[in-house]
């Protein structure tokens, strides 16, 4: 039951995070910006449309979007919301979480290659390249939390702030938060790594991969991206503020955290330009180094 409730919240709130990020971005630029509910309208419009498939495309183009959506939703069911334990939590689910995101990525790469366009191939290549650097950072960060808490389920390692000394725990959590923030920006194709609003295919990563996707398929891909932003924000906000026992207050605190994360994404996008492709590794390997330091700190504080 609680799994269904969490799934409902995930689906209901995910596009709103994108709306918040967009709104903040507009404010920073001195514009009013689109309504907060605009992402919902966009998705609805896409779900109502027909579809155009490339003559090159195979059944992969029809199968990949549902797989991307299912894998992304499945992954974030392991991130607790409100209650201290996610409904499906079990020991070792953090690996399943990361590998479900990887499954979504594999499906996205196949989807991009299916159209036989060099632009989409380029996007797929860059996605794989960025992921190869982001994934070790994600594992180092989650590993640091696992060592600190002695737990290997996402719910357990987020909930436990006790046990370790406050100094060690605080340092680890802070470093992990920064590393996860960089991973979040890369995974959700946000500004210093990728530009979601560019108009030139050559400079895109995520957007160019779905150039030939349309209608409900495109809606599923975009929805999955929104779920990813929401879910990673939720994860990050619980790294900063560990979830406690009660329901109501914590739910509100976590949702506020997600809102703050989304707003921060908007601020970051307004303040930074996209870095050159060759400098993306510095950013993501930097994230790995921070997470590695967090891990060492956690090992030392045991």
């Amino acid at each position, binding site marked *: 039951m609680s799994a269904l409730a969490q799934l409902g919240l995930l689906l209901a709130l995910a596009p709103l995070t994108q709306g918040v990020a967009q709104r903040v971005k507009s404010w920073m630029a001195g514009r009013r910006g689109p309504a907060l509910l605009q992402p919902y309208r966009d998705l609805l419009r896409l779900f109502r449309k027909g579809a155009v498939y490339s003559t090159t495309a195979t059944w992969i183009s029809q199968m990949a979007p549902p797989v991307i959506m299912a894998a992304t939703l499945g992954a974030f069911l392991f991130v607790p919301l409100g209650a201290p334990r996610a409904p499906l939590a079990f020991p070792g689910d953090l690996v399943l979480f990361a590998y479900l995101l990887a*499954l979504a990525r594999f499906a996205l790469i196949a989807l991009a290659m299916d159209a036989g366009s060099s632009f989409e191939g380029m996007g797929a290549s860059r996605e794989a*390249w960025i992921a190869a*650097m982001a994934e070790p950072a994600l594992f180092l960060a989650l590993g640091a939390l696992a060592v600190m808490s002695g737990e290997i389920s996402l719910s357990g390692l987020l909930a436990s702030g006790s046990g370790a000394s406050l100094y060690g725990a605080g340092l680890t959590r802070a470093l992990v938060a920064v590393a996860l923030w960089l991973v979040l920006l890369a995974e959700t194709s946000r500004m210093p790594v990728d530009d979601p609003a560019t108009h030139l295919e050559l400079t895109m990563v995520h957007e160019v991969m779905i150039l030939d996707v349309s209608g409900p398929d495109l809606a599923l891909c975009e929805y999955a991206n929104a779920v990813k932003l929401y879910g990673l924000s939720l994860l990050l906000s619980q790294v900063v503020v560990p979830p406690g026992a009660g329901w109501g207050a914590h739910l509100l605190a976590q949702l506020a955290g997600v809102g703050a994360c989304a707003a921060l994404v908007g601020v970051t996008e307004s303040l930074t330009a996209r870095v050159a492709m060759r400098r993306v590794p510095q950013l993501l390997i930097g994230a790995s180094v921070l997470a590695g330091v967090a891990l060492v700190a956690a090992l030392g504080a045991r």
Partner: protein
Amino acid sequence: MNLFLAALACLAAGTVLPALLYTRPRTALAVALACAWGGALLGLPPAVAAMLGAPALQVPVGWTTPLGVFTMGLDPLSGFFLVPVLVVTALAALAGHHRLTSDIGSRRAVMAACFFNALTASMALVLVARDAVFFLVGWELMSLTSYFLVTYEDDSAEVQRAGFVYLVAAHVGAAFLLVFFTLLAGRAGSFLFDAFAAAGPSVREPLLLLSLALLGFGTKAGIAPLHVWLPRAHPAAPGHVSAVMSGIMIKMGIYGLLRALSFLGPPSPGWGYVFLALGAVSAIGGVVFALAQQDLKRMLAYSSVENVGIVCLAIGAALLGRAYGNAALAALGFAGALLHVWNHAAFKSLLFLAAGETVHATGERDLNKLGGLMRPMPWTGALFLAGSVAICGLPPFNGFVSEWLMYWGFFAAGPALPGQPAAVCLGAAVALAMVGALAVACFGRAFGVAFLGHPRSRTPLHPHEADAGSRAAMLALGAACAALGAFPAPALRACRAAVEGLTPGLPSALPVLDAAGTTAARVGVFALALVCAAAALFVMRDLLLRGRAVSRGPTWGCGYERPAPRMQYSGSSFVQPLLELFRDVVPRRVSREPVEGLFPGRASLTSHPVDPAEHRLFRPAFTSLPELLARFRWMQRVPVQAQLLYILVGLIALLALGLGGVPWAR
């Protein structure tokens, strides 16, 4: 055991009968296939029983040899490795049948079928041998039969060269094993494996023995940097042979290592570090070199190096667990390693069969020239996709389960160790994560470039779907990947007895494994739910699109009106950023004619990855070897009397050594 002997007899018949029937090749091939299946069906019941922990059997075979009596036995470890040997070889024989039948004009088809059954039999012998001499005989048979299979297309210079490199590598490895077993026998006073184990932990030279085992078995397993024969031999062999060599035969090296570890007594932490280091180098190096390959089958061969590396990482963690008395880490590590052996057998043979069909259908191995094969070869394409997802360790397939067990060991049990090994365990987890992400890039590219888009070659390929036998074999392997992913608990029960045998003195190892099985069952349920969710979403979008305008149009060319197939992203361009990241790991030989002048002429760029293990380590060693030996040539240019004197001096020296006592001969 009688049933197993019957299976061996059946395989032996499958070796001899077709050779006698060579005048009627069609019958001969049918007999060979029937014998392969008969052997598998007869051998599976005893193998499964032994794997599940039936009382271990040991029978001396009534055949006295100069160094003892041939002894056979079946224990859980043998049984666990025997199951994939029998299953995969039977399926590969089915897949290869059509290929051999179409080649019936030449006698080599019948010979290949004979050698194939002989290879199966020799692998089974290696697994049941319980004395060193018998083991080495099986080992040598395995190397020789697979050599004749590798050189199937012996009219090609490339294949001859690959066969030669393989033969040399196999025998260099075997030489180390000879020394290894001789030292053990010298200590135990017998060639029986039981005697080796009973002789107790060797105090003086465990590191020497371990390095010999690593060199000998590691060459067969393809642990870096001993892997150089693998990327040559596996592409040269026909598809169904490379499936068996990569999926099964290299695992004999892993089996040998695990068996050798049981002779060497309780491990020290150092052994764990050695395995972890070798595993990390093989896994990361293997996947990076797989990325760099443009040849589909070479890519798969390097990916086998990667997977053997993953198995070594797990064994390393398990050894650390044993050294520090951490039962959970030991159990999870060994279970992860064993399950990964099964999993890799399933998906790598599937991938090699699919790649073999692709190469057979198009005559092209270069990824940069393939493309769009999903339409003419829908079955092969879909099954290659399933194998690719499985080998990346992604749910809902089987690769996830074994990697998940390893992560569980690294993350949950690892931190319970003291500081340094704990940090090493977590480092291994990060290496595994990196390998996972790179594998997604590698197989996403291989599948996307070969099967999606348009053909990139200028000469039209005329591909056709695989024959029914190959399709059935690939389907069975794909089903195995899915079943092991959805129902991992039975697989974990299957390796329970073998893990128990590998963790002597750690009685609490099994509850950990049972707990892991319970959780793994939940992973399986989740994998099924994921499949259902994706299917539901697929149906939903299908219902939404019903009655709406669904049309087809050309791919969006970003404003360019006349895109051509050659403008697609190629396999090389896909991996360029990643190779740039790893440019210090993969040196590339680049030759370019740059674009020059106002009216540029021909411009080109070619780049080939260079394997440093081959070009910096083995090639210099093998080229300088003759020069080195030439310096001793004067010793041969002496009269016969002097040569007799050599023998006398040699004998006296040995006698003196024997009397004085050599440190390692005890």
